[in-house]
């Protein structure tokens, strides 16, 4: 039964193992497992931002890129399935440099001022930047002035801190089933919206379940007057989807 719980979403379940090498050590995982999970099962940690267990992978943040031998292309570990004979490298000077640039680019994209942010010290972007030694941003920063919506009874979104990872959108759609949240526009104007771009307080489909605030990796969605340490819960999606599968 082991591999059943490892499988995510609707991927077909196949007991066949694939063998691959991660950072030189040989590992075997059930077919359909992502490189990220294959690595995690074997004690290799790959940094992530948009990925969260229990939801479909998104492949947007690009923090989890890895090298695969035989091609110069880089692959996101969170979406790429492990394949027979693959040789994966998760750490290299090049990857490290690119990951630092991903983090710098995210910090430069919108107005991140950690000192006055609700998520200070509980933020995945900040933690990753600290761990990667991102001690400054090479670009001029963009001082965004996106809208802040506090019209909901207790949920608040400050889009100036949003990294567009879509965790909130996916949890709202895939776990809560409300699909209140989605994206509007493209390029730098991309933003998370509620229903047909209503204020959150007027978004009829929102069930106020708080899951979006729980999974938001940064200080973009939070609960008013609640300590963010108590709000954040990275495991909520995995926990609920596992429970539901069992009860079915």
């Amino acid at each position, binding site marked *: 039964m082991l591999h059943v719980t490892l499988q995510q979403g609707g991927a077909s379940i196949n007991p066949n193992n694939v063998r691959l090498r991660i950072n030189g050590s040989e590992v075997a995982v059930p077919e359909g497992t992502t490189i990220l999970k294959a690595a995690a099962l074997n004690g290799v940690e790959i940094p992530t931002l948009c990925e969260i267990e229990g939801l479909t*992978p*998104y*492949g*947007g*943040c*690009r*923090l989890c*890129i890895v090298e695969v031998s035989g091609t110069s292309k*880089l692959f*996101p570990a969170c*979406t*790429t*399935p492990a394949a027979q004979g693959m040789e994966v490298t998760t750490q290299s000077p090049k990857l490290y440099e*690119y990951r630092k*640039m*991903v983090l710098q*680019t*995210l910090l*430069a*994209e919108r107005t991140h001022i950690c000192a006055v942010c609700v998520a200070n010290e509980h933020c995945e972007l900040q933690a990753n930047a600290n761990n990667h030694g991102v001690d400054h941003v*090479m*670009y*001029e920063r*963009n001082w965004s002035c996106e809208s802040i919506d506090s019209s909901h009874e207790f949920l608040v979104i400050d889009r100036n801190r949003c*990294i*567009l990872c879509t965790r909130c959108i996916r949890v709202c759609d895939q776990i809560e089933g409300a699909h209140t949240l989605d*994206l509007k*526009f*493209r*390029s*730098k*104007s*991309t933003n998370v919206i509620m229903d047909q771009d209503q204020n959150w307080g007027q978004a009829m489909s929102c069930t106020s379940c708080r899951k979006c605030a729980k999974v938001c990796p940064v200080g973009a969605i939070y609960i008013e007057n609640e300590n963010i340490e108590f709000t954040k819960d990275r495991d909520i999606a995995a926990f609920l989807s596992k429970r539901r599968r069992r009860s079915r």
Partner: protein
Amino acid sequence: MKQLKLDDLNKIVDQELEFGQAYNYRINVCCSTSCVSLGSLKVLKAFEDAIKEFGVENECKVARTGCIGACSVGPTVLIEPGDYAYSNVTPEKVRQIVRDHIVLDLPIRDMLYESGTFFQKQHRLVLRNAGKIDPGRIQDYICVGGYGALCKVLTNMAPQGVINEVLASGLRGRGGAGFPTGQKWRLVARAVNTPKYIVANLDEGDPGVYANRSLAEADPHAIIEGMLIAAYAVGAEKGYIYIRSEYPLAVQTLQKALAQAKAMSLLGSNVFETPFKFDIELRLGAGAFVAGEETAILASVEGKRAMPRPRPPYPANMGLWGKPTLIQNVETLANIPLIVQNGSAWFAKTGMTKCSGTKCFSLTGKIANPGIIEVPMGMSLREVVFDIGGGVPGGKQFKAVLIGGPSGGCLPEQLLETAIDYDSLLKVGAIMGSGGIVVLDEDDCMVDTARYFTEFCVDESCGRCTPCRAGLPRMLEVFNRITHGQGELTDIGTLEKASVFIRDVSLCGLGQTAPNPVITTLRYFKNEYISHITEHKCEAGKCYTSRYNKEEPA
């Protein structure tokens, strides 16, 4: 409804020929988007009136056709036999043309398109019928052998045989990446899931490129026949032609063509009295560049936000609604009937060994003969720019050629010997793209050009991945500083670092190729960057270069 048979096709051909033989002349008036905008519908009407006036309506046929490619000198009129191309035809000139050319049989040399070797050096396979048949009449297409290839594969070939033929032809995708078409078909054919789908890509979002539109407006049935053959080969049941809604005439032309094909049972079930069935639907896009990307197009056809997704899984296994899907550019598809009819060996004779056939381009910019051209693979850029395009007009100095649209590369004079094929272009930092060639002269600033295309990609980024969505705008800011005379030499390093990062880390082709103009201009025209930064000078006079004062920003 009665099913069409090969005999019926032949019957139509005979009828049409008989009908055509009654005429000594055929006057083809281009009614493509650009000629229509220049007034070709009035010209068409004037011809119809004039032949009546001269009483030659039984001797010559006036036809409404697609584009012959000389878009800058429209409206164009092609008179057969002899392929006399009249340019800049106005309703006023029509009487004289009919009188001299038709009645007196004296072509008017002065009014003919003076193109040098514009036509001679081209090799028209895909555009074989462009400007010669009426895209609104399926009979015209059948008369030039149309749907014969379909009949041949349905009655005489096994699907695998068709795939082998396409494999052997060496045809590669014309939509940009150049993936071998036969291999793609084999992947889809082998995929186990059903039903299977085909998507014909007519999104064509690159600014200034309109070769696919031109093809659809001139010869829609070639695309449809290509799709039908592909469907038979891979076992697909349903096809979509994804076309941007900014192409109303092409949409209309395709709609009409689909209706005619349906009426003749070329679409639907039991085509040519075989068990084969296939249907095609049009899907209109809202005109985002990124919607042409293969996974984004799938999302858009499904009615979702046109946003690319990571591959694998590849569309050949998991495409539309999770089913195996073949995505093919329309120009690629238009090659298929030719390959089937004439054989792969015949096809492979054109072009190069590793890269056979031809490629259509829209040739624009500072060039004497802009328009739609089709050249054999392997022709040098110099031949395209100077022999076909006629070089830079007005005695100006050639500076660079941008090939591959907003994500292509800017190549300088010394690289003009580069052959046009996927691999040679890649080697010098450009790409084939979907077929845009823009010629730049001494009045164009390379820094400003790179800035312009960066700005385009900033606006067109779908917003999914970090490097493209958040990285490209930072590059644009650096460009804006440089072109406003506020740059610093360290900015060149920032651009270099950022462009490599965006190229390597982005999710889809848009981000991966967006830095190409920056990378190539930095490689071949670095001195322009330096003079902008250190001397606040723009040779071409495009950029505003006042002395910047950081303390007091404007």
